[in-house]
């Protein structure tokens, strides 16, 4: 089975050119960092003021938001959907399962940027910060991912 015709590079280019401060989190960030895990969705943590720019970047790909920007800001989450599914976190900060506060601005300042192509950069949290984002949802697969990320971190520090 072939993947759908979604142009992934064009999508990330549109997000980059929108100027929206968007961190790719979730399993696709693990893939970028070198861990071949199975994933269906795109997960972003977006600066709370950048919903409009992000949605406008996604619109040419037929991705429609599930909530208005105001409703998204209130709930802290929304999604953009068609055949693809993009989950978006829009909180200024979120707590981990053990109550540690994780701030978007702090993660943004420490982010790692990766080149996908000429002029196309995707931003992911530093590995230690990605581990923190995994402690927010804290599902069984998040715990598995944390173990993988810790090992990746250890390898990088050797």
């Amino acid at each position, binding site marked *: 089975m072939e993947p759908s015709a979604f142009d992934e590079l064009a999508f990330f280019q549109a997000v980059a050119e929108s100027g929206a401060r968007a961190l790719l989190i979730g399993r696709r960030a693990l893939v*970028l960092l*070198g861990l071949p895990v199975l994933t269906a969705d795109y997960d972003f943590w977006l600066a709370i003021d950048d919903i409009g720019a992000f949605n406008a970047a996604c619109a040419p790909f037929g991705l429609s938001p599930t909530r208005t920007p105001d409703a998204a800001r209130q709930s802290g989450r929304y999604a953009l959907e068609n055949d693809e599914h993009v989950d978006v976190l829009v909180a200024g900060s979120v707590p981990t399962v053990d109550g540690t506060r994780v701030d978007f601005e702090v993660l943004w300042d420490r982010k790692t940027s990766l080149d996908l192509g000429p002029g196309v950069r995707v931003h992911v949290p530093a590995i230690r910060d990605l581990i923190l984002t995994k402690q927010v949802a804290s599902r069984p697969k998040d715990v598995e991912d944390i173990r993988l990320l810790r090992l990746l971190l250890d390898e990088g520090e050797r």
Partner: protein
Amino acid sequence: MTSDLRERINALTERHLSADEVRRALHDPVSAAEREAVAALVRWFTARYPTPLERLAYARRAYSRWQGVHASRVEPH
């Protein structure tokens, strides 16, 4: 796979663990074998797909393959 079974699996895999459950799960020591297996996996993946864009494309192909296998096992409604 029936829709009922799928819902039960989702309930298990999507549930939120408590802080204690997370702590216990992460407290399990990593064996040398697990460490080497993960390191080997990363070495293979990053050598086979050296650029971030190639890795993303791999993820889309892998998910499509997974969907193809599992869609055929889902009973129609």
